[in-house]
């Protein structure tokens, strides 16, 4: 359902001080998007501040010339808002997690509302070496999932290829002072000098955010973990690798239940792998997983301990006129997401995003073309391996708009109600702070108009694989290599 693409929808705005209305309420699809801030990972921030003595806050909220400090370790590999949208977590290839916090509203700096600043940074995973297999285990963070907040602290799960960790992120703004046995620097006092006893008191201190690993769930996956999903019971979660899915209890780290196993007895017969998995947002017994053959299986854990037999099987019949040697590869699903309502699932394959109704298994109810102009380039994309890129997809808070990434730092939004779509670009060259993003267009053939870009000019090394949408507002986070862009709808 590729619409011509609106040049610009009427910009809509929110009353000052309250969350912006969602698109479904205003009837607009994508609104007009403005760039709020572009964030660099903290190593770059510190490098720059050392060399140029620039205020850290300014770096986060301004636009710098290209310093090219980016290293491969800084490539963002996952982005996730927490359940209130107050926090935004990113994971990168270097195993680091960076959490950004939304700027609080204040009367003095009303224009800063909606900006995110660094809240906490920690090294979640380190590179490991599997001595048995003589293989290095990458520290790259594949996924981050937040737990719902139950007390003052924040909890999130982060995973690399093999190990899932539960991190607690908490604030400390008071410090005990007046110990008897230690002095203020922590050195032990000579007991002979202690003549009186006192009760230590808590005194305010500069806010410190600390992250501590509370659980480590290891040694349960032979293959690479591609998904984690927190269950709606908040007591369990699942981790999925290429061939198996395990169910964990947050309190138990030395045991997990295997609930799906598609490993064939003879590995030479392997033709299909698991690509993504997710729990239903409301029904704690239900989950889905997608495969490299473009199928989705919905399973009910009440049916049996090992959910190898699915309850529902979603597959679209193949279009014979489009059949090619690349058909299977481009049908491989790279991401699956339940809608917030729990009524639909969305899947992303190489060229399209599809929305499925849980009650209809034989075909999706909606199909959106992300970049169909690539269909004639599949052979080249196979040659340079781009055809194996795994794009993610996200719902907005009201399930009315879906978003996914593409190449050339383009990302696409589709309004399910109006059937309109827009292509936007996350790039430094084209973005000024607070300026409205200009919709982009790819020219497929024939005459290229002034602002269009031709298919052959697309930069396939600039891919938007990871995006996130604020749970209740029209704020989106887009990861482009080592840059994190935050966009929001235009506010008066």
């Amino acid at each position: 359902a590729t619409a011509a693409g609106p040049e610009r929808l009427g910009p809509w705005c929110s009353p000052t001080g309250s969350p912006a209305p969602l698109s479904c309420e205003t009837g607009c699809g994508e609104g007009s998007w403005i760039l709020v801030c572009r964030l660099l990972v903290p190593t770059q921030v510190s490098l720059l501040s050392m060399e140029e003595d620039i205020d850290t806050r300014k770096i986060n909220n301004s636009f710098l010339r290209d310093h090219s400090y980016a290293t491969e370790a800084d490539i963002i590999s996952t982005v996730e808002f927490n359940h209130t949208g107050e926090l935004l977590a990113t994971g990168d290839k270097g195993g680091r997690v960076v959490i950004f916090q939304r700027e609080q509203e204040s009367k003095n700096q009303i224009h800063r509302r909606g900006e995110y600043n660094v809240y906490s940074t920690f090294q979640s995973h380190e590179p490991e070496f599997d001595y048995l297999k003589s293989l290095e285990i990458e520290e790259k963070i594949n996924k981050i999932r937040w737990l719902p907040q139950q007390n003052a602290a924040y909890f999130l799960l982060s995973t690399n290829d093999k190990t899932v960790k539960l991190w607690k992120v908490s604030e400390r703004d008071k410090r005990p002072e007046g110990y008897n046995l230690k002095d203020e620097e922590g050195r032990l006092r000579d007991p002979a000098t202690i003549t009186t006893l006192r009760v230590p008191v808590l005194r305010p201190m500069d806010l410190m955010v600390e992250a501590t690993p509370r659980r480590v769930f290891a040694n349960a996956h032979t293959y690479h973990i591609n998904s984690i999903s927190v269950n709606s019971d908040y007591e369990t979660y699942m981790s999925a690798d290429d061939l198996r899915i395990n169910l964990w209890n947050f309190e138990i780290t030395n045991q997990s239940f295997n609930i799906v196993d598609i490993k064939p007895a003879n590995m030479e017969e392997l033709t299909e792998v698991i690509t993504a998995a997710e729990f239903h947002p409301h029904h704690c017994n239900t989950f889905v997983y997608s495969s490299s053959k473009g199928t989705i299986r919905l399973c009910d854990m009440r049916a049996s301990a090992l959910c190898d037999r699915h309850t529902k099987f979603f597959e679209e019949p193949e279009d014979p006129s489009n059949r090619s040697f690349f058909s299977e590869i481009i049908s491989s699903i790279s991401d699956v997401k339940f809608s917030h309502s729990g009524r639909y699932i969305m899947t992303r394959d190489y060229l399209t995003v599809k929305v499925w109704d849980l009650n209809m298994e034989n075909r999706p109810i909606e199909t959106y073309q992300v970049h169909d102009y690539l269909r004639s380039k599949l052979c080249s994309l196979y040659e340079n391996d781009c055809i194996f890129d795994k794009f993610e997809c996200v719902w907005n808070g009201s399930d009315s708009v879906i978003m996914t990434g593409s190449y050339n730092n383009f990302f696409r939004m589709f309004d399910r109600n109006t059937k309109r779509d827009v292509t936007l670009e996350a790039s430094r060259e084209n973005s000024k702070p607070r300026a409205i993003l200009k919709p982009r267009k790819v020219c497929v053939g024939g005459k290229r108009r002034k602002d269009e870009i031709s298919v052959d000019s697309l930069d396939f090394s600039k891919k938007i694989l990871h995006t996130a949408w604020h749970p209740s507002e029209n704020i989106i986070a887009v990861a482009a290599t080592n840059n994190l862009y935050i966009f929001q709808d235009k506010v008066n």
Partner: protein
Amino acid sequence: MFTRGLKRKCVGHEEDMEGALAGLKTVSSYSLQRQSLLDMSLVKLQLCHMLVEPNLCRSVLIANTVRQIQEEMTQDGTWRSVTPQEAGRAPLDRLVSTEILCRSAWEQEGARPAPGLGDGHVQGPVSDLCPVTSAQAPRHPQSGIWELDSPREDRGGFHKSLDQIFETLETKNPGCMEELFSDVDSPYYDLDTVLTGMVGGARPGPCEGLEGLAPATPGPSSSCKSDLGELDHVVEILVET
């Protein structure tokens, strides 16, 4: 290119030739492109195994692609889409234009459930791999040509068209032979190979380049003959006759 006499004989002949040449070109282009896709995939798989820990999903997808190509190449060697009756019925008509050719083949195949690899299966990679034929892709010309390119029926067709070529060329100087086939890729470039291949009932098998897969059809008889000659020679030496 052709003598006036020939043109008067059959008005549509030139189109026939172009159709046949285009057919030859697309057939060999397609098989070459498919072969290169197969080679590329095998290289990717080998690289996979050399990497520290290969991405299993990627490996599985590439392996499945290799399997598809192998299956198709196996089937093409023995697959007959045209029945003998139809082959006898004016194959020249089929060469009039590749569209008609493939349309009739497609319509035949449309009803029959293909063994996992229908005509449409062939169309896709050609449109990807052969920009030359992309205009024809919606009509599945390659599938039609490929199916008719099976030994029995198509040989008749080719034979006839080649006969016509040689008829005309007898009246011309030998130099124009190269002109005829200048655009056609080898092995059809070599007329001898083509002729012996046709007459000998064999053509270069599509699976020649494929490791571990027996060729569906024997190689050109000319090379077989030379092989046999060598073998005789070797045997002679061995038995010291």
